[in-house]
């Protein structure tokens, strides 16, 4: 499988750039690599401040990285001309977290779904209504809903509309940024099911950004775990969930509440994540890690391969007992 989306050593920081802005910049991403093959679903997990949403925006070219390379379909997109970008936009789309904020409240949803068709002139104006009806059908909504305004829909229905809008241009790559975390429990499973179905039918490559490991497990082939803007662990979803190697991944998995009664061996983390504007030296996780030693503060640990495709960034991998 060739890579559709490839990020290499991407860094991104916010703030601290202006003439009068003396605040410390927030370092959202620091030297992150990411690779998504055609038709592959990558789950990017992490807590707030881990940089997972920023990574999605950088992959889509909505944010320009401070350093590093972004390649789409083999070609670098850094410094692409506006015309080139317009052509690329057709092929990459995004589904947002907040179903209430991601639709323009003043325009009918059919018109919003048709936006992509109009911008790229994919379907002649006369045939757009039929295409919108087809897209609505694809996401499980009746075609007459295109004439309504966003406020007339429930959260789950809005999220379906957001997905229909993203699919209008026929993308190969879809970033789903926490698409179910704002939805009711009974609706979450519907949307996850819909995304899984669409991926299978349309052969979409997906980057699924989430803080909910359980959802990622259901939907994704591979997982990448971020903490304070750095990759802690990545690998095939089954491997990472069955035998997490990095102490942070283990803590994250143990912290998730489970249906089958009170938790797990106590693997609670101490304290809160440090501020992304002054991350710890060396391994960023060391301030909360039970295994941390002086060695961890010395240098940023590199990702090391444990088994095929399964990597973790920890100097103590050999020392930490397997689960």
């Amino acid at each position, binding site marked *: 499988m060739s890579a559709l989306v490839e990020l290499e050593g991407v860094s991104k920081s916010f703030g601290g750039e202006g003439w009068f802005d003396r605040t410390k910049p927030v370092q959202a991403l620091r030297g992150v690599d990411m690779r998504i093959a055609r038709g592959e679903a990558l789950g990017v997990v992490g*807590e707030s401040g881990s940089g997972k949403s920023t990574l999605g925006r950088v992959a889509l070219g*909505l944010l320009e990285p401070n350093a590093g390379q972004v390649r789409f379909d083999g070609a670098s997109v850094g410094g692409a001309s506006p015309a080139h*970008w*317009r052509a*690329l*936009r*057709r092929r*990459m*789309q*995004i589904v*947002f977290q*907040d179903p209430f*904020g*991601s*639709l*323009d*409240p*003043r*325009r009918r949803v059919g018109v919003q779904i048709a936006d*992509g068709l109009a*911008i790229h002139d994919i379907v002649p104006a006369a045939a757009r209504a039929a295409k919108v009806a087809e897209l609505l059908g694809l996401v499980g909504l009746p075609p007459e809903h295109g004439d309504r*305004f966003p*406020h007339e829909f*429930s*959260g*789950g229905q809005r999220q379906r509309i*957001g997905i229909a*809008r*993203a699919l*209008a*241009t026929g993308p190969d790559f879809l970033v789903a940024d926490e698409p179910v975390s704002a939805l*009711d*429990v*009974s*609706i*979450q*499973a*519907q*949307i996850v*099911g819909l995304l899984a179905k669409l991926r299978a039918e349309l052969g979409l490559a997906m980057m699924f950004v989430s*803080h*909910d*490991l*359980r*959802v990622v*497990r*259901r939907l994704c082939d591979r997982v990448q775990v971020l903490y304070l803007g750095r990759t802690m662990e990545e690998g095939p979803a089954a491997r990472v969930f069955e035998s997490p190697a990095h102490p942070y991944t283990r803590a*994250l998995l143990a*912290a*998730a*509440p*489970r*249906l*089958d009664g*009170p*938790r797990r061996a106590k693997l*609670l*983390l101490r304290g*809160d*994540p440090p501020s992304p504007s002054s991350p710890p030296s060396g391994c960023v996780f060391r301030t909360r890690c039970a295994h941390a030693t002086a060695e961890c503060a010395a240098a940023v640990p590199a990702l090391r391969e444990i088994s095929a495709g399964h990597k973790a960034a920890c100097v103590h991998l050999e020392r930490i007992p397997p689960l």
Partner: protein
Amino acid sequence: MKRIAFPAAFVAALVLTALAAPLLDLPDPIRQDIANRLAGAMAGSPLGRDEFGRDVLARLIWGARASLGVAFASAALACLVGVTLGLIGGWMRGLGEILTLRLVDIVLCFPPILLALLVVTLLGPGAGTLILVLAVLYAPGFARLTYGEVLSVRATDYVEAVRALGASTPRILTRTVLPNIAGPILVQFSLAVAAAVVVESGLSFLGLGVVPPTPSWGLMIRGGRTTMAQAPLLLLWPCLALTLTILAMNLLCDALRDAVDPRARAGGGRRRIVDRVLPGLFPAPRPAAPGLSISHLSVEIDTPKGTIRPVDDVSLSVASGETLAVVGESGSGKTLTALATMGLLDPSVRVVAGQVLFEGRDLLTLDERDLRALRGKRIAMIFQDPMTALNPVMRVGDQIVEAIRAHSAAGARAATDRALELFRRVGIADPEKRLRVYPHEMSGGMRQRAMIAMALANNPVLLVADEPTTALDATVQAQILDLLADLRRDTGAALIFITHSLAVVAEIADQVVVMYAGQIVESGPVAAVFATPRHPYTAALLAASPDSNDPSAGIPGTVPALHALPPGCRFAPRCAHATDACATPPVLEVLEDGRESRCVRRREIFG
């Protein structure tokens, strides 16, 4: 729509009359007739004549042309220039932002009338000069407003969505940004027109605006003033015209703003002030029991679509040292139930039946003073978002000290010591320092700990926690759940835990109540309910949970709207087991093992 009809008709009539002035059969507004100087109403001149014997009605209508023309033209010009500058500044950022904003600031620094006088003196009076002056005066207002609105709109997901679709900047600005900031701009436009009419009149009055003998309202007021003693009505007509025009413009723009917003159209926005019915005046039937019990609680809310009952016949109880989880999706009534236990229901929410018994007293019949004595002392609440529940301009430590001293005679010293002890108890590192910080200086997890510390300040016997971990990260959520479990064990308080997450329920609760569309559908001990659910909704919810063994496609459909509930079982439209029997409303049955279920087909489905 009705609101827009009257002001729109008035403004339209005004503008049309002014435009049609040459077509109307009016006397010449500048022809003098000294013989009829200051004459009252007479044939052909219903409003009389002015100090030069000119017809007042004709001058009023021709004057509207000058006054309104100048006002609309200058407001439109200011709007065009200001909005363009604001769009550029707000969208481009960087140099464009600095240039437009500073330009606008410089103009704003001049006293407006002084600027007008200066320009008029330099360019000479006349309608053209006036339009220019007024446009320069009002453009900065439009620019600043647009700039601010663009900043907030550009941060929304739907703008980013159109960017992701590859739309060009002009398309984004005209199709997405402008319609969404149109409301405030329309209001600003009405204010600018109204103000321009006034300033035009003022400048004309001073002799710096419209040049006589061209009629304008300002000139008419100027003329009327000199003969105020002999003919006071001459002053009244132009002033009346001025006032009515401004009023109508303001009303029109308000109505327009609502009309262009598709959201405002649906509701209608009628809200009656409801009188609060005091239910249950009889004394408590049971002796004082520890913990809290709610029996047959129903609340109603009047909405534009009719009266809804978001909590319908809910009974539940929680004993000391026990944790009861109330689980349900949005609209299930779980939060309103929790608020009722605190006596914190909004005045628009009416309790129509039921009792909330706590320490032998019905909380629903207590007056505000008694409730306040209980709240924060015997009963405490933990909210979902501690940032909104903490006072942002007060140090966290001071807020806790205040909470302690509100309910006890403790001195400042003792209260501070107690706050320090509480901070240690909830696991805040470096408590002495943290007491002195403001809420925004704490992380989400720490704020929630501070919130819990405040709730514990007076050793409550009942804690109500409304989604206390929903806004937190997974690793922090685990810490807070552990803390709550510890606290309950140590203090023996009863805990009511509102959540939408079944996994969190499994984690923390002893008893669980499952709510759906305002009703309890199932209740019982957590382990038993989760192992063998007795209601299809609970079963479906467990199956739809992401970490169940066989996550299906979720539950089809959506939670029904409370004003359009299905006639029988409320879950029937989404239930895989629904039959004709479900068309009659099921009752909440008490089962042999003390559990409850609201399903007519329970035996057939679950054995």
